[in-house]
């Protein structure tokens, strides 16, 4: 990832603080700016009202809810999505089947590769 005019903004939705902090720090080091992290759907939606991220990394299951309600907003804003989950891909609802998927636990370089790919596919100019 080369440093562009502006660092890509990535929305992070994750309820575990340890994971959220770790991923956020890693993304910062990778040259990205993190929107969030958000532990709940409500928080994520309020972030989306304030900014338009280049992509979103979202967990499937949050403490008391799933991220399913965020998906329509993200789709409407044409934001590419990467799903993180401890569940296997096949166990997720069909609604999630169209997104890129990273199974927990994952290595950071896997995450970076996915982030770079998605940004390149959807925002060639900023890549």
């Amino acid at each position, binding site marked *: 990832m080369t440093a562009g005019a502006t660092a890509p903004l990535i929305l992070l939705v994750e*309820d*575990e*603080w*340890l994971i*959220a*902090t770790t991923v956020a720090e890693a993304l910062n080091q990778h040259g990205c700016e993190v929107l969030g*992290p958000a*532990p709940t759907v409500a928080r994520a939606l309020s972030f989306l009202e304030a900014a338009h991220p280049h992509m979103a990394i979202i967990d499937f299951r949050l*403490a*008391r809810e799933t991220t399913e309600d965020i998906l329509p907003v993200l789709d409407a804003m044409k934001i590419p999505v990467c799903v993180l989950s401890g569940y296997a891909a096949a166990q997720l609802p069909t609604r999630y089947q169209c997104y890129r998927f990273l199974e927990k636990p994952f290595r950071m370089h896997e995450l970076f590769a996915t982030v770079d790919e998605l940004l390149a596919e959807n925002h060639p100019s900023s890549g």
Partner: protein
Amino acid sequence: MSHTPAKPSATVVIGIGASAGGVEALQAFFASDKGIVDAGYLVVLHMQKARPSRLVEILARKTSMPVVHAEDGMTVAPGRVHVIEPGSVMTVADGRLVVTVAPKTERSPTTIDRLFNSLAQDYNDFAIGVVLSGTGADGALGLKAIKERGGITFAQGEDGSAPLFPEMPESALAAGVIDLHLPVEKIAQRLVGIVSSMHQKASPKTANENNDRLCKEICALLEVQVGHDFSGYKQSTFVRRVERRMSVLQLSTLEAYVACLRKTPSEVTLLFRDLLISVTSFFRDVESFDLLAKEVIPEIFHNKKNTDELRVWVPGCATGEEAFSIGMLLLECADALGRPGPTIRVFATDIDESALGIARKARYPEVLLDGVPLALREKYFIRDQDHYVVHKRLRDVCTFSAHNVLRDPPFSRIDLVSCRNLLIYLGQEFQDRILPILHYALRPDGFLFVGVAEGATRHSQLFSPISKKHRVFRRLDAVTGVLPLPLMTASNRHTAHRFATELSGASSTSLRKQIEARVLQAYMPAYVLINAQGEAVFYSAGTGRYLEFSPGAPSRHLLSNARKELRLSLRRSLHEAISNHARVTLPEIIVPRDDGLRKVHLVVEPFDGGPTPLYLVLFIDQGPAALTSDHQHSGVALSFDDLERELRDTRDQLQTTYEEFETAIEELRVANEELMSMNEELQSSNEELETSKEELQSVNEELQTVNAEMGRHVEALDLANADLQGLIESTGIATIFLDSKLAIRSYTQAATDIFTLIPSDRGRLITDLAHQLVDFDLERELNSTLVQRKTVQLSTTRRDGRKHYLTCLLPYSASTGDLAGVVMTFVDVTALTEADARHRVMIGELNHRVRNMLAVVTAIASQTLRGVSTTQGLEQFLDRLHAMARTYKLLTEANWSNMSLSDLLREELGAVTGTNRFEFDGPIIELDPKYSLAMGMVFHELTVNALKYGGLSNERGNVLVRWRVDGDRDVTIDWIESGGPLVAEPAHRGFGSALMDHQIAYELDARCDRAFKPEGLEVTIRFSFAGNPP
């Protein structure tokens, strides 16, 4: 028609008809019928259309024979009961059932008549008809048809289990067509013998010559007893009738029957009536009717102008066939007249109302119309399936009314009396009384038409025969007899008759009696027997010398008939004898006669021996009186004494007469008053009747409304019942319905997996049955359901372990609030239970894996980082992992449900410190797994900190953890350390405190405040169960 049916099997068929109250009677019938295997049963019950009937099931419970719904084309199988469907008509043709839809227009049902009619046509003398309880008259004509063709007929009798509604059997009785009138149980018993004798009859006959001889003997017996010669009858008809009687009496041989005839005269009469049964059919004795049509009726018409009325009287009309036959002939003749004819009226009377009811309906089964010529049938009848309805024109001619020939005043000015059915039922004495009445009723030159068995020949002074063979007579005008009108009191007739028979009887015995009779005749004084009113009851021979008829209306009063010479003396002595009830003698009364004056000795004496006082008046001739000058010149030279005596006598007479007159006047007055008061009483009872009639009317209307409503409710119930039945049959849930005594009411098929149930177990106690469930004390559970009136729910497993049930015992109440019963349901939850078990295994495995994973991570980390990182860093890392593992352990133990805050604290503090220098104070708070994990990490960091720097770092200090809940969801936890070394706020904050602050802030939205007080650290954590209270 042939009388031996060409059937594949000569099956005997028993037709049973019933209406209201019939279900009970049928049940009783089949309960006592032990099954006649070689007869087919056809059951017709009047049922409401379009309502499914349970009769088949009801009867099937009572009999061992198969009971089926009658279907079109079904063979009438022996030993099977065929039951009519509601709204259909069942008949038989060629041994097969014909089932059609009942016509809608019928006012009163005729399904029984139709069945019986077809049985008569199809089975002839192998048909049996039974009429049980019911209203209306259906079945009567059908039975007549059966009897006509030689079958046997039954009606349910009054004694024993009487019919609930006797009207229908009584109508059949009234029509005179019942062979056996028995209680329903006895009918079933008698059928056994009758059917077997019918089967014998079907087998070939033996010894024809012998039978001929016996038939002749029967004819002789009949001739002796009833005076009718049957030897001219067709042999086959005769034998068939005799066989019928034999069947009824259950006699198998002609010999036995002849013996029975000899012994019981009443049987002779019954056979006689059976032989004449068809007299009541249409145009029976065609030749006689021909004569009537060709000679008699035209003559009657000939004498009538069109303004006249042609009147015919049919006494004893029974069910009306005779009246209609004559009506048809009259109408035919009127049509042939070619000019407006007289008004025709046929008065048909009978004493029996129910027979008249049938006649008034004017609707006859086809069998009974055999005698009607085709042309007449088409003209005067309207065909309605297998019945014929009399055309309105003919029906209007005939008037049916209840009338007793012997008791009620007769009709008058009648042109033709047809009395072909009445006299066979009456004895000679009554016949003798009726014929004068009929004579009275007829116009001069009127005609009398009587039946085979009745003869007017003995009354040749009343009627002269036109045809002796056909028994048509013409009324004779010159008649001297006294009409014994029904107005006469019974006792008078009776006494007179008794005397006549006694006297005539005495003259015909022994020689001595003959001589005595001769002497009496020659020398007996003339006498008259009178009653207390002075009316003659009996005259002896030779009274003519003393009596003479007075001019004017004829009278039976002795005084008005006595010679005037006798009158005074007679009056006096009668009066004396009657008032004193003693013998009175008047000597030597001079009576002039052709041969000169005679002396007569007059005696009046009471005659005891009858129910009413009678007096014998004797005229004893004392020889010629001396021809005195007094007498020769009577009225001129009577002696003074004589005159005086006569005057005295006359005065006495006058006095007596006057007194009698007074008494009579008084009596009349009293009688008048009585009549007046009676009239008033009648008036008031009439009014009362009127009122009650109106009341009844309204009650009836109300009942009709209620009935209609009931009908609707029954329909709704039927529907609901059908739904329920469907549900029970289709549901896969094992369900058993118990009544309040725990007896089985019904169950679903699935229940047989659990209880060994067969249909006959209905009504047994459920607790008597074995069940297939493990550890299930059915009796105890049921009892607790019953006692507590509460639903019991529990999981059960079948003995073989293959099935699991969610068992539910539900008490339910009747509308009265009483316990109606218990519903037991067993929902098959085998799949659920198995899935649950698998689930548990998997969760256990996963829990194990998670903690194992943490152990592996710990191991990998310590191996990998040893020497690379600082020992302290590694230890911290491992401690944190262990803290997490402990919380996981607690959560696993709590099955990943909520766990209490104190448990979490105790685990962490206890495990790490190895001391008990801590205290907890607070209510029970349950934390869900998310909170537990986060708070577990927080408590770990706090504990480690306390061990290193705080309250637990020396030997004295301790930790107090205190918490409270505000308003259900706001939780405040205070961590208070004391007794430790003096603490100061650290210069920088490590990962531990960051984790503490940020994690719970991020994940739980919690706030963490620290206060570094000299006595120790105080941490306050506040969070809220956001919308999700513990």
